[in-house]
């Protein structure tokens, strides 16, 4: 296994809910077919793209998930989702990115069983910034679509049971 290839079993358990969620949410909400690429471990600190929706997980699993959109994908997917084009600097644009992140996380959460909580989404838009992984491996799921590329960066682990 190469250094950047995701280990199969343990990480697959947390990856699968997100690949299903991405396909489902973007097809239902933006009428777009997505193609999920091969997941790999993130080995750089910079965010993959410039528009990020971040959701925290707590309860059964701990960590965060970042939906990172290229500008092209962000613009087009927000338009397809919201029904109109929004400026990237507008609150409506951030709301839409946050809502898409929330839906993907919520859909994945359903497959993780009861006892998993998700936070409000936070939305970061800019250039040359990093979103820190939280002392745990970050698996990047690359996604392509006719509306542009984006990725889902998953840094979560199962919470150890308390005695």
């Amino acid at each position: 296994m190469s250094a950047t290839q995701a280990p199969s079993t343990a990480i697959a358990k947390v990856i699968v809910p997100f690949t299903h969620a991405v396909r489902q949410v973007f097809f239902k909400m933006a009428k777009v077919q997505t193609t999920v690429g091969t997941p790999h471990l993130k080995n750089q600190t910079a965010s993959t793209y410039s528009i990020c929706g971040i959701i925290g997980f707590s309860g059964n699993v701990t960590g965060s998930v970042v939906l990172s959109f290229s500008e092209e994908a962000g613009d087009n997917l927000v338009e397809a989702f919201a029904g109109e084009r929004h400026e990237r600097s507008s609150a409506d644009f951030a709301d839409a990115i946050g809502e898409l992140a929330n839906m993907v996380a919520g859909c994945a959460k359903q497959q993780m069983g009861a006892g998993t909580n998700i936070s409000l989404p936070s939305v970061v838009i800019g250039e040359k910034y990093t979103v820190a992984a939280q002392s745990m491996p970050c698996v990047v799921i690359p996604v392509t679509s006719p509306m542009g590329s984006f990725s889902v960066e998953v840094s979560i682990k199962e919470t150890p049971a308390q005695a």
Partner: protein
Amino acid sequence: MSEDEIRQLAQTVWETTLGIPLTPQDTPSFASGTRMVVACVQITGAWGGAVFLHVPEPAARAAAAGMFQCEQRSVRVQDMQEAVAELGNMVAGNIKALLPEPSCLSLPTVVEGGDFSSRIPGSRLVHRVVLSADGQDIAVTVVESVRHSGAASNSGVKAA
């Protein structure tokens, strides 16, 4: 939860963890283009919202040097992120103690850069407290979830 309480909590965290006193300020004076390290800790449960800690890079560097007992020039970006995450976690943990129970803290999310803005859709600003650490302003922002009202607040993080 009042602004005074948040101010005192932040002062206590900085003083006890880093030995650096914080002095209250009225408004933040983040220079345009300043690189910022921003920690966001979400609170879920009986109360929903988030705590942002905005720290300019020089103050983050000083915090990391103090926390990890090293020279400022040897501090890496990851060290600053870890230090600000830990400080954010401590401040949020203390703020959580002032909120209705049961509530849980998320792990901190840390964003570092010089040209980004951050917001939590579906939230409103509750408090924003500005303090100065050795001449560098830091800010603690508390936002509360208002999922059903549709209001949203910018965390105030506009790093450029």
